[in-house]
């Protein structure tokens, strides 16, 4: 059975540990191409995710939603609790500094475990668990170190493959132009495969995306964490590990996100930030002014419902932004 995960913060390794096939719903190749029944006020990413979730549930697969944005949380109300018991809502705590936040995550992790067992998963032997976790850590580390070896689209593709089917082949693309191009960071919500044209547009206009901090980019690999000390038989240390690697805008306070972005902006000499979000996403939209104040860099805010028909508008803005940066 395939288990579709609506967020990179749902531990895919744990799904694998239970002998099931994890797939990042947020990296589904068809995302961005669907035309769900439109309802005003719901972000297009959430709508498409819900449409996909319905389809997957209908054919007997499982879908794991997250509580971290109210569109997806309420989407679960529409899909999960009515349609099938193969849907699960993982309550990711927004706070992260208190014992209660950790306790909540721990409870959810155990509940998630029971869900995986209920849909037919069986936890593998400790030795296999250790191999799966180590392999996953290695894959993420390898991808993290590849940010400057690939064009932005290539890097996004590799990350998407990791989340979609666990593949970690990193192909060097020989025509990466070294250090050419104005270093730019793309920060924001999920950038689906249909929207990677934005990365191409930045590079065509003389930029170089040195930081893809979108929910589906480098940031989705999580905080670089030391390997949990005891993997075998230790739910606690694993849960703590998965909890601690989350870096996202919905955390309260979201200082971890800013610290992580700042570190990379400084080390990669970023000169401009593209803030990307779907129309209807308040969490990211509200950060434009804070990002400007925090980093003192020019910011281009791009929002879209679907990339294809918005293409000319977005390209025009990117070209203008790159002109300013150059």
């Amino acid at each position: 059975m395939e288990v579709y995960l609506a967020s990179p913060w749902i531990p895919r390794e744990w799904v694998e540990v239970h002998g099931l096939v994890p797939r990042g719903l947020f990296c589904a190749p068809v995302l961005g191409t669907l035309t769900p029944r439109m309802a005003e006020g719901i972000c297009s990413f959430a709508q498409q995710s819900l449409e996909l979730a319905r389809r997957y549930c209908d054919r007997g697969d499982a879908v794991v939603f997250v509580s971290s944005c109210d569109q997806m949380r309420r989407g679960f109300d529409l899909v999960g609790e009515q349609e099938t018991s193969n849907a699960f809502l993982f309550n990711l705590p927004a706070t992260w500094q208190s014992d209660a936040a950790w306790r909540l995550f721990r409870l959810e992790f155990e509940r998630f475990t029971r869900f995986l067992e209920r849909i037919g998963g069986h936890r593998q032997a400790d030795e296999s668990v250790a191999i799966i976790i180590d392999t996953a850590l290695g894959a993420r580390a390898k991808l993290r170190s590849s940010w400057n070896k690939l064009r932005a689209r290539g890097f996004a593709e590799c990350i998407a493959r990791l989340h979609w089917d666990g593949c970690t082949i990193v192909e060097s693309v020989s025509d990466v132009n070294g250090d050419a191009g104005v270093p730019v960071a793309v920060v924001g919500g999920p950038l689906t495969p249909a929207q990677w044209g934005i990365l191409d547009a930045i590079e065509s206009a003389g930029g170089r995306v040195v930081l893809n901090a979108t929910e589906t980019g480098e940031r989705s690999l999580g905080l670089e964490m030391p390997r949990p000390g005891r993997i075998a038989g230790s739910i606690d240390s694993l849960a703590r590990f998965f909890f601690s690697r989350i870096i996202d805008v919905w955390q309260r306070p979201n200082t971890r996100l800013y610290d992580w972005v700042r570190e990379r902006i400084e080390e990669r000499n970023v000169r401009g930030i593209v803030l990307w979000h779907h129309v209807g996403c308040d969490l990211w939209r509200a950060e434009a002014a804070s990002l400007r104040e925090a980093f003192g860099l020019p910011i281009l805010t791009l929002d879209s419902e679907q990339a294809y028909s918005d293409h000319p508008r977005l390209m025009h803005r990117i070209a203008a932004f790159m002109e300013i940066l150059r």
Partner: protein
Amino acid sequence: MNQHLLKPLNLDAWDVRYRELVRSGLVEPVYGGPLSRHVTASGDHRLERLRFDGSPAALRLWNFLLTENERLRHARAAGDRLVGVMKDLGTVPVMAYALEGLRAFYPDGTWWTPCLMEETDCLLPRAEALGIDASFCPVRAMLAAFKDGGHFPLPDLLICSAGAVCDDFSAIAQRLEKLGFQILWWEMPRRRAPEPGEAQAVLPGEIVTARELVECVREELARVGKALGDLAGKVPSDAIWQEGVRAANQVRGLLAELRRVVYGARVAPLPALEMLIAEMLAIHYCSDRKETVAVLTGLLGEARRRLRIGAGVVADDAVRVFWVNPVADLRAMNLLEEWGGCLCGSDFMFTHALDPIPEDIPPLEALAQMALADPMVGPAADRAVRVVHEARAAKAEAVVVARIPGASHSATEGRVILEAVRHVLGIPGVEVEIAPVCDAMQPTLAGRLQALLETARTRRVKKP
């Protein structure tokens, strides 16, 4: 029964009435006075468009509401510490008021100030300049209020719940923190039904959830309580919290009785707008718990008096409407009645703050249960169940779900609620977006609300 229909008053008519009342010996609290002074003194121009109930009890209610900022300033000058509570509606203030020397208020109550001030204060454009534009809900007004300090005094402690809360509010609060206002965040988990084998807890409102979630919230409230205690210079105890719970229940009991008397009447004795304000007071006592009791007692007395003499504020064939969600423009509540409807019940997003807090269990446990019973914290279906239950009990003929512009949760839950209403009760319902100043949209609003009222009336009479 003779129906004596009481007409609402505009501000000018209230000035005349006020003079009459004063001549006949009206006794007012220290914050009393003519309503029109709030326009001249504070620029509350929206008051000029509203219609008010003409009773001394309503006058006291409005003056109480519109003098909150002054009250907070006096409290600060007298040495009280101020706590700004955000997002949770009705839980943390119970704790704050249990500690002497603390006053709690909701800075996000400023969200309806633009409606009252009809943009003279430019809070919304100023919020946009601070980075939060019109795609967010009117709560964004509080950003400007914090920055300029011209409304409420800046609180000594800011407390905000996070997690199962609406995104736009959460984003605005995070922006506030980035503007330099430190916030104590506490986690509100998303409420869910217990799984088989999981220990259960039954919350007020008969909602069943997992026991562990109550534990989690209780732990968080203990942390919040410690912060409140530090601010007040006291070590909180269960006895202190219990006293707060009892005092809160006194207010809740009064409000429950007021709602029963008004919504249960065949002809409403008090208008929809004053009932909305009365409910909103209850969640944080409008910064004065004792005075809230006096105000609600006055309203209840007036409602009962009117029922005895057969006086009401709507025609006796008014369509009974159950209203869901508060309105960004208070004028909408007047319009409902002007167009032939009457409020027979409400869910203004904080029904959990109206229910009595259990007094037979440890107070933090009781408060945790209350907080988790918040209709916004769980599935929209739970909220729909309660709406259906209450609308049925109120003999509602129609349901209105008001959408708050920019509020991210509004997009989906209205649909869930209306589907449940249609399916279970078979009565018509409509979802309407009500802008902070709805004058320009009045024809659109009329098209929907009047159509709803017409449909409800048609359903009363079978065609020959």
